[in-house]
């Protein structure tokens, strides 16, 4: 399966998902909170993504919808990088 994101994104997300086993693939529609993305992990992920991609999430992106799935989160990152 091909995914739109790069290895760094995959690693940052996997580090934040304690309930996702290694052999389980991360898909665009994987529900992040079901796999253990709690509020602290959400914020850690935000900080790591901002550092990795040298972007700053504006207020309107700091909502639970942005962090719902890898697809929604990658769309936010990709949009900010393109901006």
């Amino acid at each position, binding site marked *: 399966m091909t995914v739109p994101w790069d290895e760094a994104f995959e690693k940052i997300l996997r*580090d*934040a998902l*304690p*309930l996702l*086993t290694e052999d389980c693939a991360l898909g665009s529609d994987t529900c992040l*909170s079901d796999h*253990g993305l*709690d*509020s*602290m*992990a*959400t*914020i*850690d992920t*935000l*900080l790591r993504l*901002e550092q990795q991609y040298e972007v700053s999430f504006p*207020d309107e992106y*700091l*909502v*639970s919808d*942005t*962090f719902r799935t890898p697809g929604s989160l990658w769309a936010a990152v990709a949009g900010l990088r393109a901006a």
Partner: protein
Amino acid sequence: MAELLHDLLTEAAARRPAATAVRDADGAWTYAELDRAADACAAWLADRDVRPGDRVLARLGNSRPFVALLFGALRAGAVFVPVGTAMKRFHLARVMADAEPSLVVAEGADTGLLTELGTAPVHDLAELPDADAAHRGRVPVRADDLALLMYTSGSTSMPKAVMTPHRAAVFVTGAIAERLGYRAQDVVLNAIPFSFDYGLYQIFLTVAAGAELVVSRTDSHVGLMTLLHRHAVTVFPVVPSLAELVLRLAARDGRQASTVRLFTSTGAAFNRPVIDGLRAAFPGARIAPMYGTTECKRITVLEPDGDLDRPHSVGRALTGTQVLVLDDAGRPLPPGATGEIAVRGPHVMAGYWRAPGITGERFRTDPRTGTVTLHTGDYGRLDADGHLYVEGRRDDLFKRRGVRMSALEIEAAALDVPGVRAAALLPPADGADMVLYVAAGRPAAEVLALLAERLEPAKVPPVCHVRAELPLTPNGKTDKKALAAEPPAPAARSAA
């Protein structure tokens, strides 16, 4: 003077009808609008045969309609039962059977689960009415009637409910307000679940002051700084884990959040770096550590910034109440001596719902005077001025991420996991997090994943060790001391 919890709303709506009462991500209501929405809910409940004394169970995220339903249920004479959205089926089944609600309100797919777990009609939040000018849903309510059942974890393997009469809730709201001084101009940001008394009472405290409550869902913490700025928040109740999260957000934010004037904290000891961090990031804010238990809501409040003079104190007893430190025979100890913390006063609740045995153990009535003394199970000491210092517990109850839990409760859930033959939880100690040991025929990661289906996230241990057998003491109990003494070994982790 209000005698009933919903009098607080009635009075605020008369005093400040056009002031903003409550705001969520979808919009805001003035006090007049909230008052009408509450009446609409009361009438809606009456139309669905909810009678005085019936339980209305609400399993909802923090939102404006929750506040309307709460006051509507109280006006209809019902007992309101807020249940956390994080609670899993394993406990929820027990709560549904125990509370025996006449009506349930939930959200989305959750309505199906609740329908399965009981016989009461389950309604979706979206069905709640918006407004209704008629007062026809209001019924006479007495101050000694029950207002709330607050489910709490603790010394039993399953949640149990603290019975909250109107009189006690109104008293304790006033006593907390006296200490913290919420004002009509305040904007209070509540990100604590309404299923916890700390979150729920933000509604009562805010309404009593005629102030504005900004409600944030617990899955939306990432947006807290946005809310702080956008709504010029002045009061921010936190637990230490939430404060840590806010500090990280504030550090990346860069904007001055100078409107916050007061942080309150409860639920666990506030460590020095977090307090110092809040002072640095929010220079205009004072900090009020507090201590309490659902069985009487709040026990002590330290005057804002009192920690500067009395580090680690959780403050003095609320006005009109008493905090005692007792020896093993139940006799009061002098200042400086450590013993069990006990509480007397009008805020002591009416015991546990349908649990006379454990009520008698915790809420002890003096046979001569009739005075009820609440035994908290916490240990601590008082100084000469009546400031309390909490030192910990001698049973296996503890708080993690602001949530009260017990080893017994987590072990019971672990034993419910197929393939687990024995379970022992070592509570957090000396700065180390809790650790689970199981005797099981399946990998630790699977045990943790299945445990996560049974317990809310805060109660899922970060680490699990699987053994063929757990060590036993000579009298056949799991030997936790032997487990604690084991050298660290590779283990499955459930949290980063």
